């Protein structure tokens, strides 16, 4: 069939399957690569599925012999002339270990304390479109796409993203800059391509780019040209120029939204921007409860603690609990009399700590003042208006 028509994508696909069954991965990959060149969208999905299976099979094999041959893997790949579907080692991480929900607790919005408004926004903007695909298909509305979460550090952007994946019942693939960067020319861009190809085989899937500002850094501030291809590749992958991103949701999180290239914020890329504010009073009470769980405590008024920790992030609250616990332990060690963590210890700990979000909020306050013409930061403005002291 192929001899008669070299452009027959289906024939290449069948040949790839044949090679796959015959345990000839190199030839299978070449055949699938040819199939992708000439295939339509439907067939492309099938090919991607097969490639995913092939990649997994290969990774399993690699894992088996990893202990003895860890450093020789790349050389072997070159010798076999196999297209490197498994990502090349970089940043101390093996990219084949990019997590597809494995090892992650299956969390949902029930596990997120407070932040009811944010959860409702995410439900309406992300979860419902994702789980009601029929309705969206009918109206020819794309289900996947990009969402940018931004807010002060330590306020649970990553946790919210994981919970969103749990709500959507989708695979969750966290990606960090270290999974992408490679010292060799062109490999970083290829890594991005591979991450997206792998994610597409796992649909429905949520790709989570933590600290998106480091990957999608503002190109007008780059001091060199070497990062441009990486950013361009990421932009084209997010927009889905080469292949459809339906049922593939991309969530980016950043605490420096001003450092994210403006091209990422255009429609079709990260077209929804969500502000993750510091936890509200209810959320803070819940976080205190959670952090003090399993510790020897006296009667604690969580609402009072929450009231006294305005603008504290989740990480700040954890710090308060740690400081209080440390103080109690020090006292026990010096007096020799054991006692519980009391309300007073926590209040004292609050007095000697400050919310770490203030600096961020002051920066964004100035930023919003000079940049909110498009209304992207309306939510932030509302938040700042309700906290006049910042």
């Amino acid at each position, binding site marked *: 069939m192929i001899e008669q028509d070299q452009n027959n994508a289906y024939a290449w696909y069948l040949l790839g399957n044949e090679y796959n069954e015959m345990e000839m991965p190199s030839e299978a990959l070449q055949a699938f690569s040819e199939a992708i060149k000439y295939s339509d969208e439907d067939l492309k999905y099938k090919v991607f599925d097969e490639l995913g299976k092939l990649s997994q099979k290969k990774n399993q094999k690699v894992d088996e012999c990893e202990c003895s041959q860890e450093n020789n893997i790349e050389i072997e790949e070159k010798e076999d002339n196999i297209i490197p579907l498994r990502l090349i080692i970089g*940043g*101390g991480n093996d990219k084949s270990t990019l997590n597809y929900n494995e090892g992650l607790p299956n969390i949902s919005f029930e596990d997120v304390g407070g932040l009811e408004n944010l959860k409702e926004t995410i439900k309406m903007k992300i979860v419902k479109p994702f789980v009601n695909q029929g309705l969206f298909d009918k109206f020819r509305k794309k289900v996947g796409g990009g969402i940018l979460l931004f807010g002060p550090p330590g306020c649970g952007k990553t946790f919210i993203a994981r919970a969103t994946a749990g709500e959507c019942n989708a695979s969750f693939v966290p990606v960090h*800059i270290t999974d992408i960067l*490679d010292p060799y020319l062109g490999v970083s861009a290829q890594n991005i391509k591979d991450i997206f190809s792998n994610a597409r085989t796992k649909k429905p899937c949520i790709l989570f780019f933590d600290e998106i500002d480091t990957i999608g850094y*503002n190109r007008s501030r780059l*001091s060199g040209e070497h*990062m441009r291809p990486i950013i361009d590749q990421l932009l084209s992958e997010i927009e889905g120029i080469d292949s459809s991103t339906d049922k593939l949701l991309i969530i980016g999180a950043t605490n420096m939204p001003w450092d994210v290239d403006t091209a990422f914020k255009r429609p079709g890329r990260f077209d929804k921007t969500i502000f993750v504010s510091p936890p509200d009073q209810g959320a803070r009470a819940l976080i205190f409860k959670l952090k003090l769980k399993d510790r020897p405590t006296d009667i604690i008024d969580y609402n009072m603690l929450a009231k006294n920790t305005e603008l504290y992030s989740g990480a700040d609250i954890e710090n308060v609990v740690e400081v209080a616990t440390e103080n109690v332990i020090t006292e026990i060690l010096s007096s020799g009399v054991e006692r519980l963590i009391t309300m007073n210890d926590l209040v004292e700990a609050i007095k000697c700590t400050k919310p770490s979000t203030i600096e961020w909020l002051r920066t964004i306050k100035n*930023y919003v003042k000079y940049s909110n013409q498009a209304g992207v930061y309306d939510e932030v403005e509302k938040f700042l208006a309700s906290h006049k002291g910042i």
Partner: protein
Amino acid sequence: MMQSYDKEKLNELNEINYFSSIGRYEVALDKINHIMSFHPNDGYILFLRANCLINLEKYQDAIEDCKQAISFGYSADKCKYLLGQIHMILKRYVESEEYLLDALVENPNMSNAMATYGYLMFLTGHEKKAAKLLEEALKIEPDNETALHYCFYYHLAKGKHRNQIAVVEKLMSNSNSEITTLMKIGMMEYYRDHYKAASECFRQIFLLDPTDQKILKLLQRVQEEASILYFPQRIIAKLGGPAVIWVSVVITSFVLIKLNYIGTTLIILSVYFVLCIYMWLTPTLYKLFSKFK
């Protein structure tokens, strides 16, 4: 000497260079400290750390690292140039000159060092020497960003507007950083009393990096000076400043009294007195005006 690194270390070095290039010096420093535990005597890594420390304004530590990098055999011209820069920032001009000259002895074609030395000469009042050195630096490397940067500030101080524009044009075609060129245009406009244009430039820079408090202060100052409330101050500045006005008022009043124009003298003194009070109140008025706005 620069050591050879395995793949993992190469990755880490790549990350360090990347984080430095996007201005995340603290992250880069953490990674450098990590890699230092494996390569404690590596001059290149020490040099990288010195670069990060300068940007984090930890100059003394940066000096130590630079000196150590030289002792471990890393490029002496680069290290000495960096030391020259640090001492110039710290206003230790004698030490700065020594290091910059040393760097130029090591590498006479190092246009960065030559331009920095030229600017140092300008700062210390040797204007002719400064002009020659800056010109020489640009001859060696016409598109060198550091040389263009110092040339611009030299022309700005000398009030040579055409030369400023020529340098900015060159920077625009050579510099990747939008902040660098916007900053120069903003400064140029500011010194030509085009406050609105300057304010817009600084606003754009601030939007690119809202964590930069210096830019925010500059922006606020330019916006304040551009305000209609500061109109009398601008006129006074154009007439030669408050001292000139004070001397003029005193002389005029004295002459008018001699000519027996008491009424006119009183009016002039009253206007001057009101103007003084207005100028004293302007910052408060501006704050109120901004809040209302």
